[in-house]
């Protein structure tokens, strides 16, 4: 039984355990057919959660106070500008994507400059700046829903053997990110800064450069997510990023990454994303009303943190 006790100690195990039990309940209630369908939907929606959560995870790993609250605004702005530029023309797909990337790079740089020069906590810096990004999106969007080029929409929902292509792409990206985190100088620097910023500085790590790259990366992931989400959901809408703020933080933490920083886990991100989606689906399957659904969702998030909380301790 040693493997069980070893497994229980892995930080990502709770998220996956939760995801699997949710799926078992759904399948138990509505049969295998529904179980297969919900799994496919979970893969689709979970993929978007994972994309933003990867960036948020690197940010949170930098240590206490590091959270990027500008993710929803960044997603909205990137999707709005890119969709508007392409205006449904498939020929403009590549420049559209580049615009989206550009938005991410610009927002990441702005966030970092605010943190660096104003010396304010990243939470406040990204929060205040996100108001500006959101306003820019509102101003350029004017409440319209600009349709994405058909190719983009098709790609975002395309499936191979029941598995969305986007999911496969993001899986590969996740593996790449795991390599980046555990095997490269940048990744190890992020972990070191999160564990002890002073020690990291004394060891010769250029802390501000690491922070810059991390916030840049987070914004780029958010903008790319916004780009594909707009394709997936038939256009950019002003509230499209709304739930991704809570979701990105919840997924990171439930996935076993330490909120205190210094310890990150990519395997858990997938488990937690699937768990969050399946949890909501399960509550729908059980036919609960909106109010109870919210209560149970919140209670389960808190319960997961309490149960798995000992390792998160500051």
């Amino acid at each position, binding site marked *: 039984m040693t493997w069980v006790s070893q497994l229980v100690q892995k930080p990502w195990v709770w998220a996956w355990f939760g995801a699997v039990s949710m799926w078992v309940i759904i399948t138990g209630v509505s049969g295998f057919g529904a179980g297969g369908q919900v799994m496919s939907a979970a893969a689709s929606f979970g993929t978007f959660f994972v994309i933003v959560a990867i960036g948020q995870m690197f940010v949170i790993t930098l240590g206490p*106070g590091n*959270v990027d609250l500008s993710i929803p605004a960044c997603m909205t702005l990137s999707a709005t500008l890119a969709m508007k530029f392409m205006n449904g023309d498939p020929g403009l797909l590549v420049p559209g994507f580049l615009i989206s990337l550009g938005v991410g790079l610009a927002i990441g740089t702005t966030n970092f400059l*605010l943190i660096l*020069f*104003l*010396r*304010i*906590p990243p*939470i*406040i810096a990204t*929060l*205040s*700046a*996100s*108001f*500006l*990004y*959101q*306003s*820019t999106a*509102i*101003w350029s969007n*004017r409440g319209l829903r600009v349709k994405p080029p058909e190719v983009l929409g098709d790609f975002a929902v395309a499936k191979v053997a029941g598995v969305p292509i986007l999911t496969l792409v993001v899986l590969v990206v996740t593996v790449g990110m795991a390599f980046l985190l555990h095997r490269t100088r940048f990744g190890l620097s992020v972990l070191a800064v999160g564990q002890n910023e002073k020690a990291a500085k004394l060891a010769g790590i250029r802390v501000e450069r690491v922070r810059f790259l991390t916030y840049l990366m987070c914004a780029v992931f958010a903008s790319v997510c916004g780009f594909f989400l707009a394709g997936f959901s038939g256009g950019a809408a002003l509230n499209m990023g709304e739930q991704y703020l*809570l979701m990105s*933080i*919840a997924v990171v*933490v439930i996935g076993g990454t330490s*909120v*205190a920083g210094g310890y990150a886990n990519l395997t858990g991100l997938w488990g937690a994303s699937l768990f969050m989606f399946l949890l909501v689906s399960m509550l729908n399957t059980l036919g609960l*009303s*909106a*109010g*109870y*659904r*919210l*209560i*149970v*969702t*919140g*209670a*389960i*998030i*808190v319960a997961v*943190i*309490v149960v798995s*909380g*000992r390792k*998160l*301790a*500051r």
Partner: protein
Amino acid sequence: MARFLTPKALRTLLPALSLAALLAAIFYLQPRTMSYFGLNLLLNLAVPIALATIAQMFILCVNDLDLSLGAFVSLTACITATWLNDTPLLGVLALAACVVAYGALGALIHLRNLPSIVVTLGMSFVWTGIAVLILPTPGGSAPEWIRTLMTLKPSLVPFPIIASVVIALVVHIGLMRSAAGTVLRGVGGNPKSVERAGWSLLRVKVTMFSLAGLFGVFSGMALVGLTTSADANIALRYTLLSIAGGILGGGEFVGGRVSPVGAVIGAITLALAGSFLSFLRLNPDWQIGAQGAILILVLALRLLVSSRERRI
């Protein structure tokens, strides 16, 4: 004169100066606001925001952050507009239960050493869920006495100003000037030393979270007194407003450095920012953005002041 304008004094004065500058700009743009009636209209909605900011300040003071405050205020607003109005006893019990729940949350966060950001994030779902159950569609009505209180028209000074001053002073005396308040703030500064000195950290956390809950309840009640009805999402933006207000008012994220007077001023500044922008005839699209810009501007000014502080 120069002796009083030390950087430290400037830092304390900065929130008030920003508010004064904003008010001056508003008066300049729209002289009619410089009347009893104008000020009343201008500042009305600042009262619930100020109460919510004070609530957030209690949490900031023990180095935590409450991301569920907006949802919580919405819930208390819903309870106020329904139960407290129809069956006052049930309403009072429910609101008291809300305060107790906040205290219990503080205990949970302390005992299990949990990250407050995530716990409150989860709780925000719970609060919204309960609010939806209580009031599935926007509606309800404000209890008569709250309505009367919030629409009071005292002679000379408009009610929102009196209310803000009273809130700021009561909390200032309780938290900054009393012995108990010093212990409470000490936990934000150095928890270990407070514990060594024989105080229970658990009790401090529970007290602070309960106080936050209490002021959250007040905020919801005040809001319903103004809007006369409620819905489950009525105050969701208070989460960010309260954090921003607390920071604008000179609070810090760590170290128990907070300022109740500053928090109230910060909240009023944010509430006025909206009016200022509409007087500027600024495109409504830029309203939120300009609030962000004001926030960044004030923080930049503060940095300027504190860098002078360091040089001296």
